[in-house]
């Protein structure tokens, strides 16, 4: 890595790499060296920052043996945390699927005032710190919040309960589906929908037979990203959860709490979380590999 950042070599290597993009035929040896150096640099960064730490988690989780690992993840609190994480994701992701489709459809098929504002609002959760997002929910739905007394009077608990967790997760993962669909729908235009309309199709028929099949892979891709983030979300959920072990602790929160008491048990739980994310990434990779064209082209 040090060699790539070395100014004497790095500058020349970059130039050579740029040149290699334009040149045709057999590249000069300096270009070939530049390629190898850049590739090695990228791999080194990945190895040190990603692969090694990921392996470390699994190593740490199994340090005290297989039996201990099983014990750690079979603790009722951890199992409850896994179940809660799945529950939250199972509610939040479909909500964002519907929201993302509706937002992308209106952004690309209608002209209306405040369209730019809607676009900016969809992106907002990406730029707001999740902790701040959690605080915002407390301010509105908390005990002393704007809706707090009304909610209490009706016996509804949002903060420190499942609804709060779902709200926080929905908020943080709001952009994923919409952001995946908008560029694709924009590129596709609405001619096919118009064709379907003149052929006599109703709104729902157009949606299910024309629009949805065309964006299905991008939609799945967005849902997977959304799901990975929903299961891994920490900041916003941390603020609204209340950390009641076995009740309002999601898996990331459980990892955090265990970490302060029992090192190895924490890593066992963390390995579970990492595994969930790896599976999601694996599916995403398969989708990209099998249907990469459908994600990008106009068809």
């Amino acid at each position: 890595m040090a060699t790539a950042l070395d100014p004497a070599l790095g500058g020349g290597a970059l130039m050579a790499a740029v040149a290699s993009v334009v040149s045709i035929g057999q590249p000069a040896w300096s270009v070939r060296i530049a390629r190898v150096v850049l590739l090695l640099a990228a791999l080194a960064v990945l190895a040190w920052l990603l692969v090694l730490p990921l392996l470390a988690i699994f190593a740490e989780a199994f340090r005290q043996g297989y039996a201990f690992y099983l014990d750690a993840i079979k603790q009722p609190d951890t199992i409850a945390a896994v179940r809660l994480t799945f529950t939250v994701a199972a509610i939040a992701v479909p909500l964002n699927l519907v929201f993302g489709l509706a937002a992308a459809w209106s952004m690309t098929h209608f002209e209306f005032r405040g369209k730019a504002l809607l676009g900016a609002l969809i992106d907002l959760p990406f730029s707001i710190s999740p902790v701040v997002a959690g605080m915002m929910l407390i301010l509105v739905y908390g005990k002393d919040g704007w809706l707090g007394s009304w909610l209490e009077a009706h016996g509804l608990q949002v903060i420190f309960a499942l609804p709060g967790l779902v709200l926080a997760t929905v908020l943080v993962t709001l952009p994923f589906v919409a952001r995946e669909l908008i560029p694709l729908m924009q590129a596709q235009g609405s001619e096919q929908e118009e064709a379907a309309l003149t052929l006599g199709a109703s709104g729902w028929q157009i949606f299910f037979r024309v629009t949805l099949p065309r964006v299905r892979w991008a939609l799945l891709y967005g849902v997977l990203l959304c799901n990975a983030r929903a299961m891994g979300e920490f900041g916003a959920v941390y603020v609204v959860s209340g950390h009641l072990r076995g009740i309002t602790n999601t898996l990331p929160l459980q990892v955090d709490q265990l970490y302060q008491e029992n090192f190895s048990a924490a890593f066992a739980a963390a390995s579970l979380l990492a595994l969930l994310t790896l599976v999601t990434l694996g599916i995403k990779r398969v989708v990209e590999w099998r249907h990469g064209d459908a994600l990008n082209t106009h068809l």
Partner: protein
Amino acid sequence: MGIEIYRLRRQYGAFVALDDVSLTIGDGEFVAVLGPSGSGKTSLLRILAGLDQPDAGSVYRDGQDLLALDARRRGVGLVFQHYALFPHMTVAQNVAFGLRVRPWRLRPKAAVIKAGVEHLLRQVELEGFADRYPSQLSGGQRQRVALARALAIEPRLLLLDEPFGALDAQVRVNLRRWLREFHRSLGITTLFVTHDQDEALEMADRVVVMNRGRIEQIGTPEQIYRQPATPFASRFIARGQSLPGEVRGQHLHVFGHAWRMENFVADDAHEITVHVRPEDIALAPVQSDGVKAQLLNLRHVAGTVRASLRVENREEPLEAEWNERDWARHAATAGDTVDIHLLALTVFATDEEGRIQARSTVHPPHASFPVAVGPWRRVEA
């Protein structure tokens, strides 16, 4: 009866897409709407299809208010320039779409749909392609699938939006002839939009020339070529080129020549426009009383010769077009100065708002002289 379009107006912000457009299309007629981009022709098509609503005006089909029906129930077949086929459906599924989405009471039985699709595919000469996907077809084939799909709902009006715009030249010419024959055999009222003069003139029974949201002229291809109603129609259809000229009394003065005009009353005209077509510029016999012109360059295009001519009082070169056989009788080459005769001139008088006050076609008398008297020219191989 057919379609009666009355005083349609459509405005997008400050841009007027359709300005007081009225048009009647006869039953079974094939009408082309011809105009440059931005002339409003696509707006007209979208309003007829129900994809857009006019700000004012009405459209009736056999006495029935078409604008009151939404696009779903209009029974209008629309074929898009870029086909807009459903890529995830096979050819057969595409064609069957309009029948399959019908409410179940009106939906034909599966076997009937299948037979109908087969019949349509045979009509558009795509038998054996039923199970292919659009991405496996050529542009011309896709366009015919789009046509079959639009015809499946048995529309009473067929709209074609630049149907050949995305095809290459050879396919375009073939498909053009095919579509004209196909229309004859079906007899369905058809409106088709194009910016290509050749296409419009070759295919349509009548041509509607549009410019800036207005109809400039409606007529048969022959009428529009022979008697352009406006300077725009003359420029756009017949490639009319304006000449410096003026009208004094009953005489037209161009290039120092004066010709008498009959029945041309334009005493208070704001502007006089004189147009000549490329094919109405003839090479004159040597030492005649024609207009002096310098041959700037010559292009030989399969049977015709296109020449750029420099004439006095006109900054841009004048374009002329001759038959290759006529041209071969003259011994001129690029750079030479030749004499030209103007065989026909169209004179327009317009008022301050650009409305036509008078129009006349002048045939200068010298043009009736035999033209080709020069020696036969040898072309070295």
